[in-house]
């Protein structure tokens, strides 16, 4: 029974991480880069209209960071469950 429990907890935590990270993934690309790009373009970041910058630069940087965060989170989860 105890064995079952850590497995369930591990999977639940993993799914939670995935959902949160994918929500951010959606917001930075589809949200800021496509759906709300026009209003965001009102804001300027140096020479960049912000929505345009998110679509052509920002979203990609966030993607890389999201994967790194996921790697870190899972490594921490492994440690918490005493996995080598």
């Amino acid at each position: 029974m105890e064995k079952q429990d850590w497995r369930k907890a591990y999977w639940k935590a993993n799914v939670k991480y995935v959902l949160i990270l994918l929500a951010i993934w959606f917001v930075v690309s589809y949200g800021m880069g496509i759906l709300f790009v026009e209003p965001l373009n009102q804001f300027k970041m140096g020479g960049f209209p912000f929505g345009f910058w998110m679509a052509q630069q920002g979203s990609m940087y966030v993607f890389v960071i999201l994967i790194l965060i996921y790697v870190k989170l899972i490594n921490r989860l492994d440690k918490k469950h005493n996995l080598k």
Partner: protein
Amino acid sequence: MDLQTLTYIIIGITFAIYIGIAIWSKAGSTKEFYVAGGGVHPIANGMATAADWMSAASFISMAGIISFTGYGGSVYLMGWTGGYVLLALLLAPYLRKFGKYTVPDFIGGRYYSNLARTVAIICTLFISFTYVAGQMRGVGLVFSRFLQVPINEGIYIGMAIVFLYAVLGGMKGITYTQVAQYCILIFAFMLPAIFLSLILTDHFIPQIGFGAKLDNGQYLLQTLDQLHRELGFSEYTSGKKSTIDMFAITAALMVGTAGLPHVIVRFFTVPRVKDARSSAGWALLFIVILYATAPAVSVFARTNLINTVKNQEYATMPQWFKSWEETNLIQFDDKNNDGKIQYVGDEDRNELYIDRDIMVLANPEIANLPNWVIALVAAGALAAALSTAAGLLLVTSTSISHDLLKENLYPNLTEKQELLAARITAALAVGIAGLFGIMNFGFVAQVVAFAFGFSASTFFPAIVMGIFSKRMNKKGVISGMIIGLVFTASYIVYFSILFPEYNNADHWWFGISPEGIGFVGMLINFAVSTAISYFTEDVPQHIKDMVDEIRLPDESRKVE
């Protein structure tokens, strides 16, 4: 030394490297042939994945497409990078845990069915061959442009090189050549970009440069928008594609990327499950280095181009303009006979035709860089095309020798026979791909983009549901894949091949172009497969146990 000799020397050196690696890394077993022995370091695998992924289209055409479509080109930037997040979070670690060699392996095993495996094999062949034909053509084009070799001879040379390292070395040979190819292509792409950025904006980093001010104190992007308005083009930083089409294309490309068999298979080559995650991170980082530079190159090249030609006398055009005119990639037609170049948005008055590929290929000349940089760009374009072609050829040969022959038809095949079969099918695949390149179907370039639609509407739902749902059964997944593929293929064939005259927003369903229809195909696949599974038998217990097994880390890693 003249350009031609230099180009021969530099391409010769890179080819010598690839062949050297092929000989050094000859595969001795099927495991080495299919997944490089499963011992590739995650960073090396990241580089190999990046080279595998970035094709001639990424290297040569993408910056050009963005250059001409401005904000609208963002679909390729987000679409071709965002898929790696899906790969790292939803697919790669679990497929690595499953621990076999191919995508059809997973589909056949998880859905306890040889029929499902066969459908997956057909999808793999479908996707990979549509994709690889364009690559071989790309190899031929680069040869013909830079070395004045006829296109077909260029394709033969490319076939010979790929043959050497794919057939001899299998995945092991491909992996290490791809690492070398990544280094060559990224260097060749970044160097002209950095120089262009320095020339235009005094900034060393192109990503900063294209948001910076010009010498006259005005922002570069503002200047470009202004030029566009003046000439009657739509504004660079805001697009003309509809929001729903932007959304659908981006989604189809992202999901399609995550489902591409030649990309997925790369994650079978790392030693541990955790390496599959970090390797996806490295791969994306290496890809983003080029992808984040491309839109900067687009802006520099576009601004340079407009400033060079706008209302200028044709006679005063610089040397690079003339030399690209000879290849027909630039064409000038003086409609009003005033001797000046009118480059405007209005089709009737526009006098200049510019091929999008010029934006990358002519950059070193525009920026007055030395000849060896031009030669390097040629070598980089070849590296990009060859690495992708080799990766694709390997998955097609694996899906025949391993999935079809060994798993489905002749389970008694010995290791030695299977390895021989793998080499023979790899050789055959090289031949067929070359033939496709030589026959040059006019629609090939277009078809490459559609490979994503097929992969989005077949593999992605099948694999994700296989991992995240224990209720998905074989009937559901088989019907989902077939309906997804048939729907997407019909829509694409209807609009792109049968009735190109209807291929516009007025006739598209919901305003979604054929490029983005894979997204709808994916939704249909999810809906159909879920509904059918729900109304048919439950999944056998041993498969449910297997899914649990895939989801979780190894029990043996647990220390109490």
